[in-house]
C-alpha cells in the first residue's frame, strides 16, 4: 500500500487533490481511497487529506499514520505545523514552491533523506501560466506521477477530465504535463520503489516488532 498525505490551507483544494489522485490511481487500474481530515476545512486553516493506493481492495479506515509521500501545497505550513510527521524514511516529498529545496530552510527537517526524493515545483506559477488561476493541484499531481511512477500522466489527465472540461481541462492537462516533464527530466525513470510499496500488502501494525 502506498499512502500519500496532502497539506494545504482551506480553500486551496487539498481535499480535491487527494480525490484526483485516487481517481488517477483508479484509472490506472489500482484500488484507491481518498479522504479528508474531516471537519477542519476552514478557509485558510491548515488542512490535511489522504490518499491510499494499493493493488488490493483497501479496507483500512484509520488515518494515514506513516505516509509514503507528502504533497505540500503551501510552504507557509512548513514552519507552522509538523508536516513531515510520520513520513517514512524513504518517503517522497513534493513541495509547491518557486524556490529550490535548499532555499526553503528546511534542511534540518530533511536530514538523512535522499535528496532525489524531495522536489519543489512552482505549481502555482505553472497553473497561473496555463489557467490564469492559482490552482496547483494537477500540476503537483503531474510532478508526483513523474517522481513516483505510481500513476501515469495520462491517468492524472484522465482524472482531470472527470472534474473539468473545456479550457480549464486543457489548461490543467498542459500544466500537469509541464510539471511531469520537468520532474521526469530531473529524476529519469523514477526514484525508489513506490511500485513495490503498492505490492507490499497490509501494513504491519506493531512498528516496534517491525523494527526489531
Amino acid at each position: 500500500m502506498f499512502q500519500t498525505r496532502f497539506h494545504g490551507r482551506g480553500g486551496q483544494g487539498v481535499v480535491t487533490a487527494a480525490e484526483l489522485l485516487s481517481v488517477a490511481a483508479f484509472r490506472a487500474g489500482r484500488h484507491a481511497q481518498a479522504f479528508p481530515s474531516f471537519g477542519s476545512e476552514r478557509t485558510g486553516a491548515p488542512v490535511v487529506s489522504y490518499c491510499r493506493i494499493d493493488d488490493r481492495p483497501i479496507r483500512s479506515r484509520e488515518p494515514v499514520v506513516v505516509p509514503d509521500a507528502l504533497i505540500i501545497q503551501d510552504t507557509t505550513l512548513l514552519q507552522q505545523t509538523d508536516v513531515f510527521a510520520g513520513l517514512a524514511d524513504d518517503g517522497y516529498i513534493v513541495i509547491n514552491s518557486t524556490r529550490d529545496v535548499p532555499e526553503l530552510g528546511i534542511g534540518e527537517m530533511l536530514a538523512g533523506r535522499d535528496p532525489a526524493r524531495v522536489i519543489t515545483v512552482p505549481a502555482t506559477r505553472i497553473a497561473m501560466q496555463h489557467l490564469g488561476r492559482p490552482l496547483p493541484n494537477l500540476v503537483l499531481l503531474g510532478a508526483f506521477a513523474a517522481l513516483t511512477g505510481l500513476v501515469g500522466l495520462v491517468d492524472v489527465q484522465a482524472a482531470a477530465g472527470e472534474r473539468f472540461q473545456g479550457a480549464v481541462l486543457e489548461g490543467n492537462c498542459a500544466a500537469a504535463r509541464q510539471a511531469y516533464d520537468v520532474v521526469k527530466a530531473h529524476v529519469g525513470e523514477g526514484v525508489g520503489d513506490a511500485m513495490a510499496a503498492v505490492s507490499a500488502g497490509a501494513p504491519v501494525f506493531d512498528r516496534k516488532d517491525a523494527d526489531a
Partner: protein
Amino acid sequence: MRKQIEGSAAVAQAVALARPEVICAYPISPQTHIVEALSAIVKSGDLQPCEFVNVESEFAAMSVAIGASAAGARAYTATASQGLLFMVEAVYNASGLGLPIVMTVANRAIGAPINIWNDHSDSMSQRDSGWIQLYAEDNQEAVDLHIQAFKLAETVSLPVMVCMDGFILTHAVEEVEMPDQATVDAFLPAFEPRQVLDPAEPVSIGAMVGPEAFMEVRYLAHRRQMEALEVIPAIAAEYGAVTGRVRDGLISRYRLDDAEIVVVALGSVIGTLQDTVDALREQGVLVGVLGITSFRPFPLESVRDALAGARSVVVLEKALAVGIGGIVANNVRTAVAGLAIDVRTVIAGLGGRPILGESLAEMIRGVDDLDELTFLDLRTELVERELQRNRATRRSGPTAENLLRDVGAVGDPLSVRMPR
C-alpha cells in the same frame, strides 16, 4: 458500472435508482453531500417524478416524509447527530404508524460538547425507536443497503435507517459498483402501501389507542421486526443474485471459523479490524471479526451461532451508554447467554477519535487483561488534569474548555492522528 466516487454521491445515486417520489431534508454535516447531490438530481429532471422539499428543520423533514408516505409515496430523508435528535418525536411516529420511510443517518457524535465527527451516538440513541437499523461497512455496502432498504421497508411496513459512518464513509472517495437502473427496477417494484390516504377509499390514520389495544399495536411492531430477521437475508440473497454481491444481510463474518477471540463491531471500523486480524493471524493470534449489519432487529441467533466457538469476545463500540458502558455489548451478552464466553466492551472512536490498527492489535493481544469496560486510546493525562482541577476548587469551570486549553487546539488534523 464501477466508479471511483465519493460515498455521499454514490449513496445519492443509489437512492435515486430506487425512484423515491418525495425527498425531504434539512442539511447537517456530514449528511449534506448526500442531499446536495439528490437535490441536483431532482432539479436536473433526471429523477421523475420526484418532489424535493427543502424544509426548515429535521422535525419537519421527518414530518414531510410521514405525510408523503401516508399518501402512498416512496419517501426518503437523511440526517445525522443533533438533526436526528431534533426529529425524534417524528421518528417514533413514523415507526408507530408503520410507514416505510428510508432514512440515511450519516453517523456523527452528539453534543455537548459540539462535535461534528463520527461516532454512533446518534443512531444508537434511536435503537428502541421501532426503526430497522442497518450499518454499512463500506461505501459499496452503503449503496447496496440503501437499495435493499426500500424493499425491506415496504415488505415489512416499517421504516429503515441506513447508518453509514459520517466523514469516514460519506466523504471517502473509493470505488463503488453502481447497479444499473434496469437491475434496480427489476429488484424493487413500485411501492404498494398497506395503508394510504386516498379520497376514493377514505381511511383515517393516526388514531389514539388506549390501554385496550396499545400493547397489541406495539407487539405487532415487534413481530414485524422479528419477521424482518427472515426478510433481510432473503432480500440480501435476492440482491446478491442480481448484483453478484452476496451478503448475509444480518451479520458479516471474517475469519471466524477457528477464532478464539472475536471482535464484534458495526460500520466502517470493520475494515480496519479485518486488516488488523490478518496482521495478528500472521503472528499466530486466532482472531476474527463479527460485523453486525442489522442492529435492529438484532439477530440473536446469528450472533450466538457466530460466537459459539469463541473463548473471548470484544465488543468494539462507537457509542457510550453513560452510566453503564456498552450498548451493543448488552445485546451480544443476551445472544451468548449461557455460553462460557467472556464478553468485554471496548469504547472507541468517540467524537472522531481515530481508531488505529496499532491500537486495536495491542488491545486484542492483551484481551485477557482487559477490564470489562475499556476506553481505547483514552488520554488519561487529560482526564487526570481535569479531575485534579475539580478537586482543587469548586469553581473549576467548564470541562470542555478546560480540556481544550490543555490540548492546545481543536480539531488539529495531526494532533490526534499520530501513533502513541
